[in-house]
């Protein structure tokens, strides 16, 4: 069974066994294969495929155009700002593509080309580059750009911009569900239509099922945390439920709140942006809960039909505070103060 080696084995080399190519480096010496920042970003793009397909199906070439404009603009601005700051353009990490796609999907089909361009310049330039690039920004870049154009080009992005009577695509003749609810005039589409996405709205937000499929993929791949979306949707449901109890005349039921507008889209693709959300599970739950509540509150009490953009920006601002308040206790308790 056990044998003793009694003679030295034949060695292929005569000289000392030290190879000139041997490296010295600190541990650990292994790293999870294939898991890179680029891979995280590409995962988000893969997860967005169902959403993009749905946008393509509903809005046809409007969707291609809008997303295309935003992606190209974002990449261009990323390259320019990187060169400007004297760093190598970091296009290969694909984070600018993600910002572009999400920005494009958050715009209405009818927005003029310059809206996408301006939104991209603001998103990458003022949302990200001024803070020091990837990983350093406080606010979600896409939401910074979206908020800027929302205020600057109010007419191109307002409720009326979504609707065009006599359009060949029938869906474009309807008001968006949340506008319909706000004005108490139009009819809010049925739950099934909202769930599948047979409704007007910003390019990526209409289909709940597409967002769920992509979101599930992201969470299973662990490229996004599950805590934020779950807590955001739960909190939106709770707040909407309370609102319905207090204001029985409210036009939206809890399920309609959950399935209309950008709530589900933002829960999986915007709130989960790792850079601008908290680091720990507990923090993510708090962050999501704040988001869900704010979205519903803005929907109900502001002049805007939808509240995702401002809710995200407001909660982003609180993330450092949340991080500070949720420093986890080390296993076995806190070490004694020296």
């Amino acid at each position, binding site marked *: *069974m*056990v*044998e*003793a*080696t*009694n*003679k*030295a*084995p034949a*060695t*292929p*080399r005569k000289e*000392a*066994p*030290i*190879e000139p*190519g*041997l*490296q*010295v*480096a*600190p*541990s*650990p*010496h*292994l*790293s*999870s*294969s294939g*898991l*890179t*920042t680029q*891979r*995280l970003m590409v995962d988000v793009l893969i997860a967005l495929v169902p959403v993009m397909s749905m946008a393509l199906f509903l809005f046809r070439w409007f969707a291609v155009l809008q997303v295309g404009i935003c992606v190209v603009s974002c990449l261009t601005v990323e390259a320019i700002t990187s060169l400007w700051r004297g760093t190598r353009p*970091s296009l290969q*990490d694909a*984070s600018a593509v993600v910002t572009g796609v999400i920005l494009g999907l958050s715009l209405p089909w009818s927005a003029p080309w310059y809206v996408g361009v301006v939104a991209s310049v603001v998103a990458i330039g003022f949302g990200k580059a001024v803070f020091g*690039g*990837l*990983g*350093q920004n406080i606010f979600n870049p896409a939401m910074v750009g979206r908020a800027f154009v929302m205020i600057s080009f109010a007419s191109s992005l307002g409720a009326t911009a979504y609707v065009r009577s006599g359009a060949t695509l029938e869906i474009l003749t309807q008001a968006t569900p949340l506008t319909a609810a706000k004005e108490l005039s139009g009819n809010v589409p049925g739950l099934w239509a909202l769930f599948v996405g047979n409704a007007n709205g910003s390019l990526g937000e209409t289909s709940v099922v597409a967002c769920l499929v992509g979101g599930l993929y992201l969470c299973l791949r*662990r*490229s996004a*945390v599950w805590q934020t979306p779950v807590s955001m949707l739960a909190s939106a449901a709770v707040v909407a439920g309370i609102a319905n109890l207090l204001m029985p005349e409210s036009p939206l039921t809890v399920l309609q709140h959950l399935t209309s507008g950008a709530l589900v889209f933002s829960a999986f693709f915007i709130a989960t942006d*790792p*850079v601008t*959300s908290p*680091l*720990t599970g507990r923090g*993510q739950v708090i962050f999501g809960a704040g988001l869900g509540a704010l979205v519903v509150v803005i929907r109900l009490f502001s002049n805007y039909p939808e509240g995702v953009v401002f809710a995200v920006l407001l909660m982003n601002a609180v993330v450092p505070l949340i991080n500070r308040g949720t*420093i*986890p*206790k*080390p*296993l*076995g*308790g*806190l*070490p*004694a103060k020296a």
Partner: protein
Amino acid sequence: MRVAQPGPVSPRRRSFAGGIHPPSSKRLARDQPIEVVPTPKQVRIPLLQHVGALCEATVKSRDEVVAGDLVGSSDAPVSACVHASISGRVAKESAATLPNGRRVPTVPIKAGDEQLEGQALLDDTFGGEWPTLRLDLPRPDLILQGVREAGLVGMGGAAFPTHIKLALNPDRPIDTLVVNGCECEPYLTADYRLMLEAPRPVITGALLAASAVGARRIIIGIEDDKRQAAEALSKAAESTDIEIRVVRTKYPQGSERQLVPVLVGSNVPANGLPLDVGVVVVNVATAAAIARAVLRGKPMTHRIVTVTGRGVVQPKNLLAPIGISYGELIEIAGGLTPDAARVLAGGPMMGFTLGDLDTPVTKGTSGITVLTREDLQQFEETSCVRCGLCVDACPLNLVPTRIALAARKGAWTLAERYHINACMECGCCAYQCPAQIPLVQLIRMGKAHLAAA
């Protein structure tokens, strides 16, 4: 005498929060039986192979020694004496740099003609009868004395002197002895081969250690990728009440702070030791060494070293004399392959890279892992995107990215607020980091800075 019960292999699987699943790569060496290394021409016995004080040489140049003779000892409370691992003539003291970077004096011994080697050495080390009845075992103070005189240290890697761990402390009663057979470092198979081929001395050593510390209960923890080892041990433990528990394979299951909660149910305090919850943990190889030291009076002269990795031609598990060089063991394993890139003392998660293959093997050397360029595929470091994967991976519930980036920027207060000193440098965070940030190295640097401040 206790009622004899068969040592059950518990089907219960429990684990700890955090941790990672790196490719284990144990397949490379796990089926290689323990092989005795032929006596080298010379060994260099380092006078410091443990945590604690340096030993003074007790022999002079040109002295004749027999394998097992004392060659260095110290009066300091925390230290472990060292012994000749081969017979021969002592040469002039020289210095060697150990893998952890410490430069220490060594006692070189040039081999004489008379040596115990081959099958005879293997039989002498693991063969023969090993009692498993507690009545047959010596008194606790004699056990402790035997352990101290044999220069035993923890063989799992930390190399803490064993007699200090086993010393009875009236203020801190010990309830449970945990024997650690997890061997969670990827690649390494030395403990696995020991449990499989020589389970009896492990069991006897566990009984001796438990008797020394006054533990009522003995639990052996083994990861579920080593079921054969668990079966071999439970067979050897049939006449004892030792519990053998199979735990989930996950890195770092073999760390005390992870293993104790899983087996005993209580967390080790962040700044404390298993002792604080009435537990003493010894590695399986240390247990076998205790049996050999106490019952046969044999000091720690040899240990099993796994030589493995895709960077060596024929991975092996070797019974090697302390003081043989890393290079010689690699040659016995067929030498380095052309694409060998990094030679590690230990495994890939916590092992040190070796700059010099003449470095002598010490009591704490559990393996030599040689990684190839392909194993070390490197990606460019990017900014932290705060994805939180390091937070999920940290088995100590820390926020590695915060600590590391605070250390990089010199924000020491922030690093302390995030409990930098609680980190045990297991490497899970850096393994997971998609941005390839050298988190562990940054934390290490921060700790060193804070310790110096």
